[in-house]
């Protein structure tokens, strides 16, 4: 494969990963890392370094729309970024001491979790009463968002902020360790623990992912795990795919796509597991 061919193929991989990621509410990292390692035979550290840079591109590109449309709760996002960025640094350093075999196994487990999360995703319409949260009151975290389906502004209250900080530290560690956005961990932490509406959770997760990824990307960059011929076409491809892909793929029934995705991800998870233990 010539350098120009590799660039073109990796760009295409990025476009598909970005498009699918946007459609499923994932960053694309869960697709990029397995493709680079299993299909192209690349080093898993290079795959992770490449993926984390691509994740920054998608999150930053998508965050503009979420902020402009008042879907993301910036205050909640910035508050929780304290935990995710600290977790991401932990993860990036953990990644440098773990041998690649262990990385494959952890990645397989994380893939399994995300497959289950995507397959079972549904929004909770009627929530039980939220416990009071003085910290959320003091920081002014409660918010509102324009719900297009209901045609009005929906207000919501935030709860269990301290629990969310702990969960976000874990999500950040997974992100930094595996080079993924870990939206499948961030969204439930906000949706289920804090009681944010699912649309706000998804938007806020996307808003936060760029900062989380930047915390570990700096470490990967300086370590030399980011390589121009690989990381650049993937990053630009994922950005293009994320911005345009959701529209291109809009004809597909999302439920069927989620089921197909869950199946594919489980197969890839088994592949990664086999690569790790043999």
């Amino acid at each position: 494969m010539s350098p120009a061919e590799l660039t073109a193929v990796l760009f295409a991989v990025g476009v598909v990963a970005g498009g699918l990621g946007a459609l499923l509410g994932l960053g694309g990292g869960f697709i990029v890392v397995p493709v680079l390692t299993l299909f192209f035979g690349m080093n898993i550290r290079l795959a992770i370094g490449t993926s984390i840079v691509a994740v920054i591109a998608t999150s930053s590109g998508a965050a503009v729309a979420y902020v402009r449309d008042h879907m993301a709760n910036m205050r909640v996002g910035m508050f929780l970024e304290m935990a995710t960025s600290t977790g991401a640094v932990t993860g990036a350093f953990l990644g440098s001491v773990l041998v690649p075999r262990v990385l494959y196994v952890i990645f397989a487990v994380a893939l399994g979790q995300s497959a289950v999360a995507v397959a079972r995703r549904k929004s909770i319409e009627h929530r039980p009463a939220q416990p009071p949260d003085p910290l959320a009151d003091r920081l002014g975290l409660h918010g509102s968002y324009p719900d297009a389906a209901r045609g009005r502004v929906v207000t919501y209250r935030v709860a269990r902020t301290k629990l969310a900080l702990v969960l976000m530290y874990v999500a950040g560690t997974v992100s930094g360790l595996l080079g993924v956005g870990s939206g499948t961990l961030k969204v439930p932490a906000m949706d289920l623990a804090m009681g944010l509406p699912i649309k706000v959770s998804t938007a806020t997760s996307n808003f936060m992912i760029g900062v989380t990824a930047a915390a570990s990307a700096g470490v990967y960059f300086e370590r030399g795990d980011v390589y121009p011929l690989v990381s650049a076409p993937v990053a630009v491809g994922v950005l293009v795919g994320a911005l345009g892909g959701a529209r291109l793929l809009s004809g597909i029934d999302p439920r069927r796509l989620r089921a197909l995705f869950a199946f594919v991800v489980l197969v890839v998870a088994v592949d990664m597991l086999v690569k790790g233990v043999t």
Partner: protein
Amino acid sequence: MRNPDDPSDASSNVTTSPRLERGVCGVLRAGVSISSLVVCAGVALTLVSSASRSSTRRAVAQLRRGVLRPSGLAAPHTVASVLSGAAHGRGPALVMLGLLLLIATPVLRVAVSTVGFALDRDRRFVLITLAVLAVLIGSFAIGG
């Protein structure tokens, strides 16, 4: 999208100011566009540069064998070497400069938020965003 008929809308929430939102959106948009342009220019330069053609081919072969840092075409990965390489018009260095700008985009977004919260006299969030900024800058300072 505010609803003036909804009484809960006016009273219940502390929101971020439009000025802060504009700043955040602006820095994200500019960061992504500029870094993508630099990355694309660098890739084009790397691929057309005849001087590096054989070494680039060798690097691709090494990458496909699982080599982490190909010796065929070495890429700079410290800020100083990236800057000096890009200043000399070397393709790989230009790509790395673009990727560095991309990584810096969220960091700048946090810095802009700090300024925005300071202008809004929101002392708690100035401290929160400063803490995030410290982690981000710290991670880069102790990386490598």
